[in-house]
């Protein structure tokens, strides 16, 4: 009997009827492990403009507020596309290779 590599993977007998999903299931499904490069912010250069926040296609940037004055990427979901680094007017974000 073959067993899936992870308990998170379904066997043929216990897939939901019609191969369906409840809403919000992607919260549990962390897509960040697809990433090969990660955004690293140089807070010295950051002017808190919010371009990274607005341009991120996956909405992974979180506003850290008026005291902290920067946006933080949630690496559980960041796929490493680099749009934030490309759009950053101060070149404050560098895409850095993920080490395995």
């Amino acid at each position, binding site marked *: 009997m073959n067993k899936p590599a992870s308990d998170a993977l379904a*066997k*043929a007998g216990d897939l939901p*009827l*019609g*191969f*369906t*999903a409840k*809403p919000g299931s992607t919260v549990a499904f962390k897509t960040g492990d697809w990433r090969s490069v990660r955004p690293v912010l140089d807070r010295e250069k950051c002017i808190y403009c919010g371009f990274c926040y607005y341009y991120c296609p996956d909405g992974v940037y979180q506003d850290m507020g008026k005291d902290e004055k920067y946006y933080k990427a949630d690496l559980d979901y960041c796929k490493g596309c680099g749009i934030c680094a490309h759009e950053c007017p101060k070149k404050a974000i560098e895409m850095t290779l993920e080490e395995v």
Partner: protein
Amino acid sequence: MGKRIGIEVSLAVAEAVKLADTDVVAAYPITPQTHIVEHLSELVADGELNAAYIPVESEHSAMSSCIGSSAAGARTFTATSSQGLALMNEMIYIAPVLRTPIILAIANRALSAPINIWNDHSDIMSVRDAGWIALFADNGQEALDMTLASYRIGEDPAVSLPVSMNIDGFTLSHFIEPILIPDQEEVDRFLPPFKPSLQLDIKNPISIGLLGAPECYTEARKAVDNVLRNSKKTVLKAFEEFDAVFGRKYNLVETYRHEDAETVIVTMGSISETAMTAIDEMRDQGKKVGLVRIRLWRPFPDEEFLAAVAHAKNVAVVDRHMVLGCSSGPVGLEVRSLVYTSKLRPVITNFVLGLGGRDVTRDNFKHICDRASSGEVQTRYELVGVYE
């Protein structure tokens, strides 16, 4: 008790759809299926059937609409033929995995090219592996009865799969036959209202039709295969209930004078009636021949089929579809591979005939029986009646 009337078989199928109180019909006309949906559009327009009739712009849209309406919990019907089924193909493969019961009447017609509007089985064989339950009717009464049975089978909570109900284009669909149209009360006793196992519901939202990554695609396909195989039990149960209500007994595999037959012919669809006449004539001449007729094509009724051919020395399998570049037609392949895994060792021969509306005659069946019992080894199918 119903009423026996003379009616075109296509119209009788439409009457069955009405008796089933179908909620949604989404269809595009195509010969030789058109009379079915034409009559349904009249029934809806005249207020005899309270259904949404969606006149879509293509068969691809027809099947897409059907999947959507079935997922929304509506009892759903469509019909097509040949190129229409080919255009539906993408959605045909999706409906079983989404577990959306849809009743599809196919007036079987040859696939192009060359373009041809007449009957053979190449259309249904093109979706052989899609995961649909497939039933074949061989006369007008069966066409009506199988349509009603299709709803009962496909919508059963243990099944929840789409069903194709196959009738031969023109040679069955366009014939006027005496057909017993059942009473509404009888149909209501046989066919309960559709209670979907799975439903799009804004109060309890779900996503239907997800991405199946390499980690789960195999499992999602396997889940459908499990259900499709198990659906045979529901088909048997539905046929028993059908007999109890309507007094007509159907089997997964039908037989005719096969008990002591040395040579059995295997057929599907309306040519079976011609085969039975030919068998009577051959029996009169002392030849031990019989018929095995497959009613349930998918899931293939392995045990029932093997039991039906258990005593035969020669099994002559008839195909109405040419598998180009292969040793057998699809029914021939099915029978050869199934029998090979059993202890039975009859001589199996395969005959392809009746393509693109070419007449299938009693003489064809006599020829087939002679060839099947000749003792000659057949290395590939014989194309009966080809001019070369």
